[in-house]
């Protein structure tokens, strides 16, 4: 239960960090909060030859809301984002999701961008980012030239623990759109203990205009395909916000979302959870959207 020998770099500026990553290529692994990486190192499921510790790089710990986009840097700890009132006002789903991410002690050190990059299908953040249509801001430096690209969530998550981030790239920030008027969101999950990895979770987003449901989407935690969004609205059709048939939606989700069994839950039990939790998440998201519409109107 000790990491294998490794080389360690602690760059103190962004260009230096990018240079080190470019030089190391496949051999380098970024260390931010380390709350997923260090257990992997200790269990020797991962043994990168070198770590690039970005904790001393200035400017990566900022949370900004600008032009309809909420952006948080690579060193923003879960706790900081969860407690940021500006971030909550811009996109309330993040706080709702983060309160389910591990325990406070882990959230104090772990970073939200790191959780996205780790690309774990049983984590909350990949499902949240996919549902919101957010993106990862990746920077790299080759031959002294710094380049940046934005990778949309739909292209970022390739599979379990696999993302589109290249070895020489650093995910400097994650961006999500600010909540639209009439947008309601919810995250509902079931875990053995609060804070543990969910056996199944559903993230839902509803948009209501007047009294009509305009759109309804969901993504899944520990179920379904990473990076894919289930369009529940197409199944519901054009109905009033108070007329959504939750039972029918749950049954539909059970049909289209594939599940696997593991030590924590059988595939059949997970499918049952997909059905039940979809109904609960949709209810909560639609209620949240209706409340938002009422708040706007008053």
């Amino acid at each position, binding site marked *: 239960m000790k990491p*294998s020998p490794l080389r360690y770099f602690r760059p103190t500026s962004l260009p230096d960090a990018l240079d080190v990553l470019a030089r190391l290529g496949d051999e380098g692994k970024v260390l931010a909060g380390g709350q997923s990486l260090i257990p992997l190192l200790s269990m020797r499921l991962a043994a990168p030859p070198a770590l690039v*510790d970005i904790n001393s790089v200035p400017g990566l710990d900022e949370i900004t809301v600008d032009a309809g986009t909420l952006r948080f840097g690579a060193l923003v700890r879960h706790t900081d984002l969860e407690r940021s009132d500006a971030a909550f006002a811009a996109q309330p789903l993040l706080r709702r999701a983060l309160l389910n991410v591990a325990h406070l*002690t882990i959230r104090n050190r772990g970073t939200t961008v790191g959780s996205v990059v780790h690309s774990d299908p049983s984590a909350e953040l990949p499902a949240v980012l996919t549902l919101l249509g957010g993106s990862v801001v990746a920077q790299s430096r080759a031959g002294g030239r710094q380049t940046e690209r934005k990778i949309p969530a739909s292209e970022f998550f390739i599979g379990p623990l696999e993302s589109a981030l290249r070895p020489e790239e650093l995910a400097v920030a994650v961006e999500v759109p600010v909540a639209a008027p009439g947008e309601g969101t919810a995250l509902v999950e079931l875990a053995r203990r609060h804070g543990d990895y969910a056996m199944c979770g559903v993230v839902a987003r509803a948009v209501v205009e007047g009294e009509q449901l305009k759109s309804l989407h969901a993504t899944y935690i520990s179920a379904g395909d990473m990076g894919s969004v289930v369009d529940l609205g197409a199944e519901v059709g054009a109905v009033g916000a108070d007329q959504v048939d939750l039972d029918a939606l749950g049954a539909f989700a059970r049909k289209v979302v594939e599940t696997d069994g593991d030590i924590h839950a059988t595939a059949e039990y997970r499918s049952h959870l997909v059905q039940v939790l979809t109904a609960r998440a949709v209810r909560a998201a639609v209620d949240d959207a209706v409340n938002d519409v009422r708040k706007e109107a008053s």
Partner: protein
Amino acid sequence: MTEQVNLVDESAEELHDVRVNVNGTWREIRVPARRLLSDALRHDMRLTGTHVGCEHGVCGACTVILDGRPVRSCLTLAVSVHGHEITTVEGLTGPNGELHPAQQAFADCHGLQCGFCTPGFVTTIAAYLEENPDPSEEDATEAISGNLCRCTGYQNIKKAVLRAAELKRGGAEGQGEARQ
């Protein structure tokens, strides 16, 4: 200090100088990059109050306070705390050996049996009370939800959280300052 025993052969590994403030004193250690903070505290600094249970972040026994916030020392590399401040369970006790309210509360409420998990609980609760001086019973449960105890069944630990808050609010005795 006495000569320290080298527990693993690190002759082939690159070593890093780490300067870290532990319980108010700046300490300098030379460690390989892979040294976990929990091991650095116990082996390199001989502060064995921090206990190592699961070594992958699940049990919470190794919790220390890093720059005011509780973190898992087994999920932190010693090299990455260079220049930072750490409080371990040893650092909670006052200069004359008086117990921290969180420690006193564990004694008052019979919050420990074997005591292995206790340092992690005490550091977690001490840091928690700095931010939430008046927790409800539900808050107390949430505060300790990331720590495992295999003896007590948690009820007395929950009582200890509330008792610690009471002691902290009411001074050393905590008498006559009953909760509103």
